[in-house]
């Protein structure tokens, strides 16, 4: 494998609502920051790849209009995934393996404030058997959470503790809305919304953007492993209490000797599943940014985990794991392992 480094990172602050920047403006701002961080000029970039969702942005081919923010003239080599930007990063990493170009710019953007994210996520469900029922992502996560409780892999206090950890760490993160201080007992006193999940067990949805510049060789954290795996679409054939796809992605990415992990948990109950599947333990720092429970920008949350893992390495960690997820009940999982150079 060709050695690829993270040459530059950037994010825009995750806000509950970004009313004043459209998609192209978000992209222009975040890609300029990432290029400056890498010390690379726009015209030096060999490949551009983005991740976003038309359903979330509320406009067909919204990613094409957002390209105005990159500067696509003279013509550039460009691609897009209708997914979280972490998968755009994967495509760019694969593209760099070809060896004919040395740099790639990856970005993603999302606005949860312009529509109903749950409705958009419903569009990815089975169109015959599941989507017409109108089930919400939270109800599906609750079915998974109940299975976890029944298997005695976790209890409701574990869910509340995951929220507490996220809020405490998130309070030190200048790029997210300030989390509300609370206690585990206060969280557990809240009513169920989709039992056994409470409103605070769902990630706080935000607007934002993130970008990464990849470079073959050179300084910066090195990607030592990168993999993604998916489970069947039909919920009934999956064991919802474990995440075999996250486990396989972690194995394939060589996720061992990790110091810091940034994991993508749309719901607090999923942290237990991912800690088990990714082999995380209490000796590791998990989600020093606060993670997605305190700020989850759709289509950005996963790429931002890689940005945060890069920051952890720049702050002195040796090996960091970044995880992204997609689909109902952690259907699709991606793991990227970074190492300091």
């Amino acid at each position, binding site marked *: 494998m060709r050695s690829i480094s993270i040459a530059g990172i950037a994010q825009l602050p995750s806000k509950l609502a970004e009313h004043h920047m459209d998609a192209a403006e978000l992209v222009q701002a975040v890609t300029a920051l990432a290029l400056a961080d890498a010390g690379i000029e726009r015209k030096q970039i060999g490949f551009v790849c983005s991740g976003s969702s038309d359903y979330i942005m509320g406009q067909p081919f919204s990613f094409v209009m957002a390209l105005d923010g990159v500067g696509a003239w003279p013509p550039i080599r460009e691609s897009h995934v209708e997914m979280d930007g972490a998968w755009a990063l994967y495509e760019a990493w694969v593209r760099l393996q070809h060896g004919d170009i040395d740099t790639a710019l990856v970005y993603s953007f999302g606005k949860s404030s312009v529509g109903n994210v749950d409705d958009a996520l419903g569009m990815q469900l089975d169109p015959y058997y599941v989507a*017409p029922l109108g089930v919400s992502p939270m109800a599906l996560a609750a079915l*998974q959470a109940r299975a976890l409780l029944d298997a005695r892999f976790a209890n409701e206090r574990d869910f509340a503790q995951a929220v507490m950890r996220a809020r405490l760490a998130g309070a030190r993160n200048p790029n997210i809305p300030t989390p509300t201080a609370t206690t585990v007992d206060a969280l557990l006193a809240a009513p169920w919304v989709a039992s056994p999940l409470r409103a605070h067990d769902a990630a706080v949805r935000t607007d934002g953007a993130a970008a990464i510049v990849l470079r073959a060789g050179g300084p910066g954290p090195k990607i030592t492993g990168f993999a993604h795996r998916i489970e069947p679409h039909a919920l009934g054939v999956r064991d919802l209490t474990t995440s075999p796809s996250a486990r396989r992605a972690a194995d394939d990415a060589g996720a061992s000797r990790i110091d810091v992990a940034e994991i993508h948990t749309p719901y607090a109950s999923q942290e237990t599943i991912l800690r088990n599947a990714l082999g995380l333990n209490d000796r590791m720092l998990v989600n020093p940014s606060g993670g997605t429970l305190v700020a989850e920008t759709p289509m950005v949350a996963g790429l931002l985990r890689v940005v945060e893992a890069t920051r952890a390495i720049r702050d002195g960690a040796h090996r960091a794991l970044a995880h992204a997820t997609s689909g109902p009940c952690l259907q699709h999982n991606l793991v990227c392992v970074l190492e300091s150079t």
Partner: protein
Amino acid sequence: MSLPTDDLVSPFTLEYTYKRSTGPVIGRFLAGLRDGQLLGVRTLTGDVLVPPTEYEPTTGDAVTDEFVEVGPEGTVSTWTWISNPGPKDPVSVPFAWAMVHLDGASTPMLHVVLSPEASLKTGARVRAKFAETRVGHIRDLAGFEVVT
């Protein structure tokens, strides 16, 4: 959150603007629902997939052409109680979503349970309740009710 007054606001209808055909397997299941029948399909390894798909999800193998009637009773394998249904929910009163393992099936299916919260538990026995008007749609199955 209130919007600043200088923002532009536009209506947006979220939809997938294509017609789908249901095909020989899903179509057979939906026709079964219309007729008040729950059908699974047998895989090459002998499992009965409910609801049926044209392929075995973990291997990608084609399924056999043998359809098997399952239910109408089954067992709840996991559930969640929705205390305040929203406009997108299929029923307007509090209800449960559940994965129901129908008798004779190898896999559980997602649907609603229309019984009081106190009667819900993992392992509860439930029975299919069909809608009065049926058109060949997943909601021809109104849901399940706990069998006491």
